[in-house]
Every structure is written in C-alpha cells, then in structure tokens.
C-alpha cells in the first residue's frame, strides 16, 4: 500500500494505491473517487471482529457507525480519500502502540488496526473536544485529518494546548483541564478560558486552527435558520 497526501495543508486529499488484493478500511463517506474495479463492503466493525457495540461507540465519538472496506481486484487500483472541512491530513505508522484521536479525525487505516472508543473521563466535557475519542491500536498505517495545519509537539513534562486544537496524542500522555492564566480572573479576561494541560512524555498533534472560532466569524452574515 502506498499513501500519498496531496494539497497539504489546506485541501488535503489522500491517494491510496492498493496492490492486487490489498485492503483498506476507511470512514464511511471519505472516498471521493476510485478505479472502477475496486470492491467495497460496508460493515459496522473491523472485518471479522467486533460488532454493533463498537459501532455505536464509534458513532458517539462523532464518527460514522459504518466502515467501508475497499478491496483491490487482481489489478492495482487507486482510491482518493478526502475530509469534509478544509484542512490537513497526516499519514502515521503505528508500531504495536496506541494513538488517541479526536472524534471525527479518523479517516482510514490498514486492516490490522483495531478501531475502538476511548473514554477520557468527564474532564472531556470541559475540554471543548468530543467527549469520546477514537483509540487506534495495533501495527500499520493510519490516516487522520484536522481543521488547519497539523503540527506535532513533543511533550516532556508539561505543555498547554487550547481546547479545540488537539488532533491526536500518544496514550503515554495524560491531560487535565485547567486555566490558562495564573489566576481565574485573568484566564477569563484573556479570552483563553479553559485549556488542556498535557503531562508525561509523548507527542501531541495539534491543529493550527479551531473550527468553532471560524464558525463564529460567519454567524453575522449567514442566513438565519428557522426555529
């Protein structure tokens, strides 16, 4: 399998080339174009494992309940994958490890990766992120997406990331919700409010922009919706 990510970071699309009879698992709706002879099956789970419970959990994380499995025929084939909003995509290889991904940021993975739900506790309610996170476990290539450019931060000790800017992190890290300034009043006045403080050793992948901030700038000129 060869993954090539084009048009980074603004309008990223992944071109996945499958060798004969290779497989790719992808979030439902991510395919935008493909060779005419690639087969597609839809399941609620990873092929030959899991079940409806995992699918329901995945839906809670803002992902689709359904996964598509693309199978190359006896010939090499290509699939183009894209995401819904403008933004970046990243290819990453897991080596028998766990990555925690923001709900909605999972795009695709090789068949050996387990896709499950990670509960990050009640603190997630305040993090401005999805309450549920997707856990990717195993060995193989994965593709994730973001709103904005993706940049990694190597944490060794403590680091603060504003809510709404987290895409993924190694499960060797833990986070707590805290204030941005030295005092609560300062945090409130600064407009920064609550932030996530990561602790431990590992990588956090951040997205440069926050989709909710952008959405709010559109409000005044968008057509109102009916009540």
């Amino acid at each position, binding site marked *: 399998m060869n993954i090539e990510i*084009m048009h980074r970071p603004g309008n990223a*699309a992944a071109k996945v080339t499958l060798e004969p009879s290779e497989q790719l698992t992808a979030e439902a*709706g991510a395919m935008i174009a493909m*060779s005419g002879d690639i087969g597609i099956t*839809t399941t609620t789970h990873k092929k030959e494992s899991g079940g409806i419970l995992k699918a329901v959990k995945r839906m809670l994380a803002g992902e689709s309940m359904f996964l598509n499995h693309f199978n190359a025929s006896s010939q090499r084939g290509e699939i*183009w994958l894209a995401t819904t*909003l403008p933004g970046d995509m990243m290819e990453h290889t897991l080596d028998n490890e766990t990555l925690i991904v923001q709900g909605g940021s999972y795009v695709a993975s090789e068949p050996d990766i387990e896709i499950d739900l990670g509960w990050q506790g009640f603190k997630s309610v305040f993090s401005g992120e999805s309450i549920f996170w997707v856990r990717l476990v195993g060995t193989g290539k994965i593709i994730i997406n973001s709103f904005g450019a993706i940049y990694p931060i190597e944490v060794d000790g403590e680091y603060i990331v504003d809510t709404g800017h987290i895409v993924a992190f190694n499960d060797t890290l833990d986070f707590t919700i805290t204030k941005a300034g030295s005092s609560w009043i300062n945090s409130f006045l600064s407009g920064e409010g609550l932030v996530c403080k990561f602790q431990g050793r590992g990588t956090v992948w951040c997205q440069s922009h926050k989709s909710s901030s952008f959405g709010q700038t559109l409000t005044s000129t968008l057509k109102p*919706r009916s009540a």
Partner: protein
Amino acid sequence: MSEQQNQQQTATAEQPGYAFKIEGRPDYSFLTVTIPANETLKVEASAMATMDTHINMKTKMKGGLGRWVTGESLFINEFTAEGGPGEIGIAPGPPGDLSHVYLHNEVIFLQNSAYVASTLGVEIETKWQGLKKGFFSGENLFLIRCSGDGDLWFNTYGAIIEIEVNGDYVVDTGHIVAFTEGLDYEVTMLGGYKSLFFSGEGVVCRFNGKGKVWIQTRLVDAMVSWVYPFRRVQKKNTTTSS
C-alpha cells in the same frame, strides 16, 4: 512561498487569450485578468475584488429562467476596459482553486456554481441533465455548457484533481466540477444494498469514454451541515440581529 505557486500567462499561439495571473494557489486562488482596450470580460456576480478605475461594470441577466430556478445568480457582470487596457481582480466565494482552459471550438461541461469568468467568444448555456442525474450527481439539476472560442475560468471548493479517463472511473456525487464532451456518466449504485444506505458512498457517478474530469476535494453539503449550529435562529416574523 505562495509566489512559487502563482500561475502567470501571456498570449501565445496555443493560448491566444487574455493575459492573466493566478495568485494564492491552490487554496485561495485569486485571478487577475488584463482586459485589452475596449474589450469585455464576463464575470460571475459578486466576484470582483479589485479593478482599475476606468473599467466600467454592467449587469446583464444571463441564462434566463434556468439559472434562476437553480438558485444560481441571475446576473453576470460585464466589465469593459474603456479607452485603454485595464486590470481586474476576481475572488470566488468558496475557498479553493481556479482552473483556466482556452476553448478552441470545444465543449466543456461545468457544475452549476463553478463558473467564474469568460471572454465574449465563449457561449454559456444551462443544460438540464435529466432528473436522475441531476438529483443525484451533486449540487444542481443543471449543468453549464460552455462552447466556442475563448478563455474560460472556473473554480472549485477545495483543491482540483484532474483525472484523465480512458474507460471507466468512479467519482463520488458532489465532487464533479467539470468534464469534457467525449465523456458521459451514469448515476449508479456501488456495492450492495447495505452500501447504498450505510456506506456514505452508495450513489456514485460512473464515467465512461475518453476525456478529462476535474474533481474537487471538498463537498459543499458537508460545509452546509457544518455551519448549521453557527446560524442565528429566526423567530416568527422577527429576525434576531447579530
């Protein structure tokens, strides 16, 4: 950095059209066209961002009822450089790229909202694509048929991917921007019934023939759903102000 991606073009034998440049590629492409003295450029309504002061703007109704029915703008503006060459800067509404083709007595079909600008030698008509195709293929029931001789610029929401088709190629609904005349497509199902309802890819456009398809990496429907929570709520008879 962005400078390297700029596209600049002056008239040559193969490209006899107007001189133009595209800056801000590929995500926020901005088109600047030099209109020769006393000539006219057609531009989609609201897209003008900058221009020389001696360029004169006239609003024309184009496409008739067809464009009105499809929710497209009823008006195309005509910009004429009075007395001397003039420069106009054009910014499409959605974030994305711009493509230029010079038509030599050729035909190209555009998705309804992809039209940006053209010279007067290009004929623009709206074409009914049939109910099934129109309903399933994406944004609109109509396509724009561009024919004749001259410059044509069109835009995408997201980046442009050009695919040379020879035989059979599948494109998801809503991602088609333009295609050449030698191609036809059918709206078909992918996979079984389960895929139809749950895969998110159920209905696709299957192209056949030999030619070129331009697809966009982003989907308008996704943006429409995403902005929903950011829209103000309109109460009965009164509009809440921002």
